[in-house]
């Protein structure tokens, strides 16, 4: 019964450059994951390898949040109100890893 209304909807043709960018981002995410796999099997575990993993994860997060979730193109206030609270998470990580190793030493030494 709404067919008259629906036929008036104008479908805009797809912008090739936009679609290409989406697949580019997907390709970057896939390549970064592949590099992580490479490091997982060719490098010995240690602080350096862990740092590389965390670094690559943050790059991947940047692409997902910036491109897929479109945050890069939002207003500055929104970007900062999402990013600034994450500083507390970084601190929380440092504090609790420190706490954990201190528990380890008091348990086993």
């Amino acid at each position, binding site marked *: 019964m*709404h067919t008259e*209304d*629906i036929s008036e*909807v*104008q*479908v*805009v*043709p*797809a912008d090739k450059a*936009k*679609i290409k960018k*989406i*697949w580019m*981002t*997907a390709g970057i*995410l*896939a390549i970064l*994951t592949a590099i*992580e*796999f490479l490091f*997982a*099997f060719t490098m*010995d*575990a240690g602080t350096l390898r*862990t740092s590389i*993993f*965390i670094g*690559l*994860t943050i790059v*991947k*997060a940047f692409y*997902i*949040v910036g*491109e*897929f*979730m479109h945050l890069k*193109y*939002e*207003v500055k206030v*929104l970007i900062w109100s*999402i990013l600034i*609270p*994450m500083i507390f*998470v970084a601190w*929380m*990580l440092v504090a*609790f*890893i420190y*706490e*954990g*190793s201190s*528990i*380890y030493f008091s*348990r*086993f030494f």
Partner: protein
Amino acid sequence: MNASYGKLMMWFFLLSDAFTFSALLITYGMIRSAHPAYAGEVEAFVFSQEYWPIPEKVFEAVPFLHGMSLPLVFVGIMTFILIMSSVTMVLAVEAGHRMDKKAVEKWMLWTIVGGLTFLGCQAWEWSHFIHGVGGGGAGLAWNEYGPPDFAALFFFITGFHGTHVFSGVVLNFLIYYNTVTGVYERRGHYEMVEKVGLYWHFVDLVWVFVFTFFYLV
């Protein structure tokens, strides 16, 4: 471009959800660093309650390839599935901007398929983890792979993420249904696809972190 009220609130919800997941992953880091680490050669690794297991030695099974040691291959496939379903979600959002109903339907359907496939993979992963590889498997109180805390954290973190994937699939289905019945076309915009899309990308984002902190590090 100004974010609408709905999108803004979705962002703040996701921020609070990010705190919850951060807390869970940081708990993992803390408990792990409070346990002894395995010190010997990777090749000589055996499961023991004495030290934290190496993840690639725990997660090395793939469906239909019984008895083969394929470390992290299955979880790599799962990561790929989730990234792909995130891509199809972006394509659905993009089609929504162009008022292309048919394309939104197509990409939403692919996103739902991706989500369901991921859930199926996780069900297999859990089942394999619980039944174990000959040492009694793992539950909340016992664990053949290492300290009991390892299994408890595995269930808690991947379970909490899996619950998010499940609710994401439900939301995606509702969006798909509304698209098919023409709700958004009559409304004149597809902003709901964007809002649920934000949630779906967030679920993918969390998996990227779970993958690194639980399976790689």
